[in-house]
C-alpha cells in the first residue's frame, strides 16, 4: 500500500496548499463588515421607497394604464436571464467535459442562486396587491403563464442551490478542520453541512450521481424558466411581443448577460481574493470565447427578431420598429446593440481583448446593455396599442420611471449582492478538492483515487499525534 499512501500524502499536501489559498477569504474582516453595512444602508433606503409604494399604491411609479409594465418587469426578466448562467456553465459546458469550467462552476452557481432567489421578490414589488400573494396558491390557474413562471423559478432556484451545495460537500469536510480562528458557529455549520463526508467510495459515488442528475435536470428547467418568462409577452398580440422566436431569443440573451456577470465576478474574486493562481488568464481566455459565442448566437436571433417584421412592415410593427430604430428609443436601442453586443463581439474575437482587464470592461458594458435591452423589450411595445390612446392625462402617454420606482428597482441588485457576498465570504468560492485533484492529475499524470483518502481519519490521526 505504499504507493497509495504516498499518493494520499501528496494529495493531502495539495489540499493543504489549495485550501490555504481559498479559505483565506472565509472570514469576517473589516472589509466585509463595511461592505455589508453599506449594502444594508442602501437597502434601507430602497425599502423605505417601497413602504411609500405600499401606502400610496403603484401610482407612485411612472406606470399607468398605457404602459402598465415597466422597470420592475424589465428587472425581473433581467434577473431570471442572468441566473441562467449557472446552467450554461456547470451543465452544458461541464457535461460536455470542458475541464476549465471547474473553478468557475461554483461562481456561476452563486450567481444563479442569488439572481433566481431575488427574481420572485421583484414580481412582488410589481404587484398591486402584494398582500394577496397567497391567492396565487389558493386560486392558481394552470392556464396562466404567471403560474408556470412561479413554479419554474422556484424549482430552478432550489436546484441551483443544490448544485452549489452538493459539489461543495467534500470542500466543507476538508475545510472544517482548517478553520482555526473563525467563529465557532461557522465551524459548527461546516461540520453540519458536510454531513459526515469522509470521502468513502460509496459517498463519492452518491455525490457524483446526485450531481450528475441535477446537472441534467437543470437543463430543461433552465430552458423552461426563461421560455416561460418570454411567454409572458409572447402570448399577447401586441406588436413587438407577438413573436414566435421569443423563447430562444430570451434564452440566447440570457446567456449573454449571465456570462458577462460571471466574468465580472471572476475578475473581482481574482483580484480581491488573490486567486490569480486558480483563475488564470487561460480561464479568462476561455470564458471570453464563450461570451463571444453566445453573443453571436444572440445577434443571430436579434436579426431574426427585427429583420423579419421589418421586411413585412405590418402597420403596428412599423410604428414599433420606427420608434425603436429611429424614434424615441433609438439612442437606447443602438447603444445597446452596438456597445453591448456588436462591438464586444468584434473585440472578443481578438486575443488581446480576452485578458482579464479588457474583458471585465467589456463584460460591464454587456451586462449594463443586457439590462437596458430588457427595458427596450418590455416598455416600448406598450406605447402603441391597437386602439388610439385618448382623453387621458399627458403623463399617462409616455412612461418615465420615477425616483421611487428606481429606488425600488435597485433593491433586488443590493439583495443579490448581499447573497453573493455572504455565500462567497462564508464558503469557499472555488472547489478545493477539485483543484487539488486537478493539480495531482497535472503532476502525477493520473487521477487521485479519492476513495482511498479519508480526510477525517487523516485529521484524527494528526490530532492524536499532536496530543501525544
Amino acid at each position: 500500500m505504499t504507493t497509495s499512501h504516498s499518493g494520499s500524502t501528496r494529495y493531502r499536501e495539495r489540499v493543504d496548499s489549495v485550501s490555504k489559498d481559498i479559505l483565506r477569504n472565509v472570514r469576517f474582516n473589516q472589509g466585509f463588515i463595511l461592505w455589508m453595512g453599506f449594502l444594508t444602508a442602501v437597502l434601507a433606503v430602497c425599502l423605505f421607497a417601497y413602504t411609500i409604494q405600499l401606502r400610496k399604491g403603484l401610482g407612485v411609479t411612472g406606470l399607468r394604464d398605457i404602459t402598465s409594465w415597466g422597470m420592475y418587469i424589465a428587472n425581473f426578466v433581467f434577473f431570471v436571464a442572468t441566473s441562467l448562467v449557472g446552467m450554461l456553465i456547470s451543465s452544458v459546458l461541464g457535461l460536455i467535459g470542458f475541464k476549465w469550467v471547474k473553478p468557475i462552476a461554483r461562481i456561476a452557481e452563486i450567481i444563479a442562486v442569488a439572481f433566481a432567489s431575488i427574481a420572485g421578490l421583484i414580481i412582488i414589488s410589481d404587484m398591486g396587491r402584494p398582500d394577496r400573494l397567497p391567492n396565487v396558491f389558493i386560486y392558481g390557474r394552470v392556464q396562466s403563464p404567471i403560474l408556470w413562471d412561479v413554479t419554474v423559478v422556484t424549482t430552478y432556484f432550489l436546484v441551483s442551490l443544490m448544485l452549489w451545495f452538493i459539489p461543495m460537500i467534500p470542500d466543507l469536510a476538508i475545510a472544517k478542520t482548517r478553520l482555526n480562528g473563525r467563529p465557532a458557529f461557522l465551524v459548527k455549520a461546516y461540520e453540519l453541512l458536510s454531513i459526515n463526508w469522509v470521502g468513502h467510495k460509496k459517498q463519492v459515488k452518491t455525490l457524483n450521481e446526485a450531481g450528475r442528475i441535477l446537472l441534467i435536470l437543470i437543463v430543461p428547467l433552465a430552458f423552461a424558466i426563461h421560455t416561460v418568462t418570454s411567454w409572458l409577452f409572447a402570448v399577447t398580440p401586441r406588436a413587438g411581443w407577438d413573436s414566435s422566436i421569443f423563447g430562444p431569443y430570451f434564452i440566447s440573451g440570457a446567456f449573454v448577460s449571465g456570462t458577462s456577470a460571471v466574468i465580472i465576478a471572476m475578475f473581482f474574486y481574482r483580484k480581491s481574493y488573490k486567486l490569480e493562481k486558480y483563475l488564470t488568464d487561460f480561464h479568462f481566455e476561455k470564458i471570453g470565447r464563450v461570451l463571444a459565442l453566445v453573443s453571436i448566437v444572440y445577434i443571430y436571433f436579434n436579426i431574426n427578431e427585427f429583420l423579419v417584421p421589418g421586411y413585412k412592415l405590418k402597420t403596428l410593427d412599423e410604428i414599433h420598429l420606427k420608434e425603436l430604430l429611429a424614434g424615441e428609443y433609438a439612442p437606447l436601442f443602438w447603444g445597446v446593440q452596438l456597445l453591448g453586443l456588436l462591438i464586444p463581439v468584434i473585440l472578443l474575437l481578438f486575443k488581446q481583448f480576452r485578458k482579464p482587464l479588457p474583458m471585465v470592461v467589456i463584460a460591464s458594458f454587456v451586462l449594463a446593455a443586457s439590462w437596458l435591452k430588457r427595458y427596450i423589450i418590455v416598455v416600448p411595445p406598450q406605447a402603441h396599442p391597437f386602439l388610439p390612446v385618448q382623453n387621458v392625462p399627458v403623463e399617462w402617454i409616455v412612461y418615465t420611471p420615477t425616483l421611487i420606482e428606481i429606488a425600488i428597482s435597485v433593491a433586488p441588485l443590493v439583495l443579490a449582492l448581499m447573497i453573493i457576498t455572504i455565500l462567497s465570504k462564508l464558503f469557499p468560492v472555488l472547489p478545493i478538492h477539485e483543484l487539488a485533484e486537478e493539480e495531482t492529475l497535472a503532476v502525477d499524470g493520473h487521477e487521485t483515487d479519492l476513495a482511498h483518502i479519508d480526510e477525517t481519519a487523516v485529521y484524527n490521526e494528526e490530532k492524536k499525534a499532536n496530543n501525544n
Partner: protein
Amino acid sequence: MSEKKKKENPEDSKIDEILESSRRDFLKMVGIVGAASVAGGAAIYSGYRHEKAKSSGETIKVLTEDNRLVEIPKDQVKDYKPDLKVLQTRGRLGIKGKKWVMVIDLSKCRNARKCVAACQGAHHLRPYEYHINTLVMQESKNTPAYYMPKTCQHCDNPPCVSVCPVDATFKRQDGIVLIDNERCIGCRFCMAACPYSARMFHWQEPLDAEADKGKEYDVELNVPQKKGTISKCLFSADRVREETLPYCVSACPNGVFYFGDENENAVTNGTTKETVMLSELLEKNAGYRILDELGTKPRVYYLPPKNRIFDFKQGPATEYKETT
C-alpha cells in the same frame, strides 16, 4: 314574442322575460344561502316589502327555490339583502339562458360623452378613468374621422381571462367578462394581454374610497373600487340583473347603443327603446367587430360610420389632469 305585442310595449315584454328568468335565478340563489339559515329550507322572496305583522297568526305565501308555494308566519318575513357571499356567487354564475350583446351604431355618435359620464358616475370613477371611452378614429388620411365609443368587448375568447393567474377575471355563462376585486392580485397581465386597452388599473386610492367604505362589494358593479386592482366595463351586470339597460346605453341621447340577448336575437335601443332583430340589424348595416382577426370573438358589434361629417371638426380638446 308577437310583432304586435312588441310594438305595443316592446320593452315590457322583453323585460318580462328577463324578469322571469332572473327571478328564478334569484330564488335559486336565495335558496342556496337561505337553506342554511331559514328553518324548513324555505327562502324568502325579496320583492315583498317588510310589513309589521298585526297579529302573530298571519301567514304569507312564499315561492321557494324549487317552485313550491309555502306559507310562513308574516312576522318572520325579513327584507332580503344579499351579503358578500351571495353577491360573489351569483356574480360569478351570471344569468342563465342569456347571452348579452351590444351593438354600437357609429353613424349616430356625436361624442356627447353622456355614456362616459353615466358610467363613471355609476362605477365611482374619475373623469380620466374609463370603462367606456369615446375615441376619435380615422382609418386613413382620405377618410373623415368618426367617434367610436369603446367598451370592454366581452370576448368569447378573452385573452385577459386566459392569462389571469388567479381566476380573478372570468367569463360568465351570459357572456359577460367580470373582475373579482376581492381576488385580483394586481399583476396587470390582463392589461398587457387585452388588445382593446379596455382595462384600467387603480394606481391610487379610488375616487370614492372614503365614501364607499363599509359597503358590501358587488362584483357586478365593481363598487367599492379597490386600490391596486383592475376595473373595466361590466356590461352593467347589476343593471341587467334588474332587467334594465346598461348605464351607458340608456344615457346616450343619440341612439347609438343597442343592448340585448343574442339568444332572443333581439336588441333594444337605449334612446328610442325600440327593440329590433339583432341579426337583421347587423346584416342590413354591415355590422362588424373590431380586431376580429385576433380571434377574440367580441360580443360588441359596431355598425359602420356611414354619413360621416366631411369636414370633421373636433371640439376643443379637454385637458385631463391627474387628481387624488
